[in-house]
């Protein structure tokens, strides 16, 4: 049970913050299928930073990881500029832009990873080794039956995610900025008529989307993978999109969806172990969260309502 909780939380929270990134973009009216690309690109920047600065820190220092999270956010935001410019400045089809941004991220980071490895480090490799992040256990809380799992072997980044998510929620629901941003997703013409700059709001939203996805991607690199390579593009971005839709584009509900996916996944692993299946079968269990997604979407998507102006190209001249 403890394992299910530990691994479930470690998977759910990065997924959640990526989904929150998606919510930011989509509530502003910009369809975002590019989460996959954002999270990979963000993690790439973070990994490059860690690799290039590895000589500056003591081997046991946790500091590089925290810095990498920040760099990943900045890198994710930087990469998101592509999607923002295509969709907002050039009014491209947002679905196509998202797909292109994903493909580009994979190809570009793969190429750059090899190049940086050979040029800067003089080795031929298509990955950056990161080590898995250290974990914290909080006694005596960890000794509580069942619930103790939430305080056992916790990745430090989980707290970072929770803090960032709280700020993201506050900004979206309590501030002027958030109010205008959400209005853009419903009726950008109303926002324009109120004297606000729709393009700037949407641009900002997409950049935030990139930053949050980058953070989530970096956390995956530090936990699930332990290194950075193109294997980070395994569809977690799309899973985050599913969680966002299942969560009805609202932050609290999306957290619920992510927890569900995370626990389904970790419970699947425990199941594999308990049944003593050969490891090749564990791939089958990996399908579980995705199958669950499909099933849930079939039943629940009817009641869900996407932002009304989602994907609509905002043209100020149109009346």
């Amino acid at each position, binding site marked *: 049970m403890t394992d299910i909780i530990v691994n479930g939380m470690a998977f759910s929270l990065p997924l959640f913050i990526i989904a929150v990134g998606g919510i930011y973009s989509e509530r502003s009216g910009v369809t975002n299928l590019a989460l996959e690309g954002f999270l990979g690109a963000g993690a790439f920047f973070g990994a490059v930073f860690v690799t290039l600065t590895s000589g500056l820190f003591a081997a046991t220092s946790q500091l590089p990881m925290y810095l990498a999270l920040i760099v990943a956010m900045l890198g994710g935001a930087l990469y998101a500029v592509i999607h923002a410019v295509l969709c907002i400045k050039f009014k491209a089809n947002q679905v196509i832009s998202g797909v292109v941004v994903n493909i580009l991220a994979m190809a570009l980071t793969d190429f750059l990873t090899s190049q940086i490895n050979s040029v800067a480090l003089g080795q031929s490799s298509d990955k950056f080794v990161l080590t898995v992040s250290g974990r914290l256990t909080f006694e005596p809380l960890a000794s509580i039956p069942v619930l103790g799992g939430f305080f056992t072997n916790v990745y430090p980044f989980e707290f970072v995610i929770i803090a960032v998510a709280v700020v993201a929620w*506050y900004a979206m629901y*309590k*501030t*002027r900025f958030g*109010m*205008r941003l*959400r*209005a853009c997703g*419903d*009726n950008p*013409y*109303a*926002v*324009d*008529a*109120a*004297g*606000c700059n729709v393009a700037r709001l949407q641009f900002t939203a997409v950049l935030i989307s990139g930053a949050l996805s980058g953070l989530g991607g970096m956390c995956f690199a530090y936990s699930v993978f332990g290194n950075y390579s193109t294997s980070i593009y395994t569809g977690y971005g799309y899973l985050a999109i599913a969680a966002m839709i299942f969560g009805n584009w609202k932050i609290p509900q999306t957290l619920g969806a992510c927890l569900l996916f995370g626990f389904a996944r970790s419970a699947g692993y425990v199941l594999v172990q308990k049944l003593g299946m050969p490891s090749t079968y564990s791939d089958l269990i990996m399908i579980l969260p995705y199958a669950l997604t499909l099933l849930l979407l079939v039943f629940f998507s009817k009641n869900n309502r996407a932002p*009304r102006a989602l994907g609509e190209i905002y043209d100020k001249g149109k*009346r």
Partner: protein
Amino acid sequence: MDDYIVEMRHVTKRFPGIVANDDISLGIKKGEIFALLGENGAGKSTLMSILFGMYEPDEGEVYIRGKKVETFSPNHATELNIGMVHQHFKLVSNYTITENIILGMEPRRRIAGIFPAVDVKSADKKVAELSKKFGLEVDPTQKIEDLNVSMQQRVEILKMLYREAEILIFDEPTAVLTPQEIEFLLEIIREMRRKGKTIILITHKLEEIKKVADRCAILCRGRLVGMCDVATTSTKEMAARMVGREVSFELGKEPAKFGAPVLNVDHLSVKNDDGFTVVSDVSFSVRAGEIFAIAGVAGNGQVEIADAVAGLAPVSSGTVTLAGKDITRSSVRARAEQGLAYIPEDRQARGLILDFTLSENLMLKRYYQEPYCVKNVLHRDEFDKKSRELIERFDIRSGQGEQTVVRSMSGGNQQKAIVAREIELDAPCIIFVQPTRGLDIGAIEHIHEQILAERSRGKAILLISLELDEIMNLADTIGVIYNGQLLKTAPADTLTTNEVGQFMMGVKE
């Protein structure tokens, strides 16, 4: 000239291929209700969009309170205390009334003295006060998606008042309202004048101008053709100047000669896509030579009745009989061949294929029949021959005759094309749904003449319209629909406009 709060001098605005405003000069006094009258495309909205800063004039100047306007932007207009209620409301549907009103200038408070947050509660109070002051009767915490059109319009008005607008522009505010709602709105407008606001009313409805306006400017094809004191000018005079010729309000309606019932609708119920009953237990019959009109506020099930009769929506219970034959489950084509012509509400979505030529569109109900199609091969020369005949007969105007792509035609001519196609079927029963929506007076006259001509030829006509005037002018029998039910069915000459309006609001006898 200091007494003018708004002054426009020699304003000209051109769009590609058209002069929307041609050298217009006018002045508006503080505290008056100033009407701007003209047909569709006369340039009223463009002129006011310039005042509101949405367009910059190509020539000429605009003065507000004696000061020349240098920058044209809606934000600047708002700073000058000008507000505009657009024809299409700009509201965020999942926000409350208050949230919509404060959007863009949200009051702030600090949570725990540190974190800034939008202060919705204090804004709620302010909105409620404003609403009370001007008699708008809104609840600030309601969500927009739960409001009807009339309430949404009041939210737009509150938005302007919240921004302390002194000059308020209304673009066709009554187009979407019922007679009672129109009265309510006009009362609000009068109340605002009493409180010292200056009101500009864009409209093509003469009665409204007569009811509230002080002065009226008349535009025709981009030019200012007249300026009159409303109190001393007759509506007939205003109409003549607006159209540029004499207009007869009287339609040459022949006395009724009713024949046998052609269309029978018996206990009809229709459910929408969500499974809600939108038409419940409606029964009526339309006789040959009769215009049966269904009056009602938009969204009360009238369009669904037409769709069910035409075969575009499934019938959940009840029967539809055409000339003695049950067509409740027939296909659309079978109904057309049985003798049903249909002029749909949304001419662009359902009546026409916009990227096809006029000729192809005129043949949409005939193309598979001889001589237009022989052995599965289309004969376009036959299409064109027939089309030219129809274009001539129905006076359809277009750039390149029958080869014109329909998208490029004006709304009036698009509608004429649909009417031509359907009337040409020579079906004993014709359904007209909102046949004059969005058309100007000239085109409306033409369509009305066609409807009456078909009546004289003994056709059974089902007319569904949101324009009460249209119904009162044309109908022999009126059925008023409310909430999916026919509340009242009676010969037209036994009902007054006011009574019909009452029934439209659901008032029972």
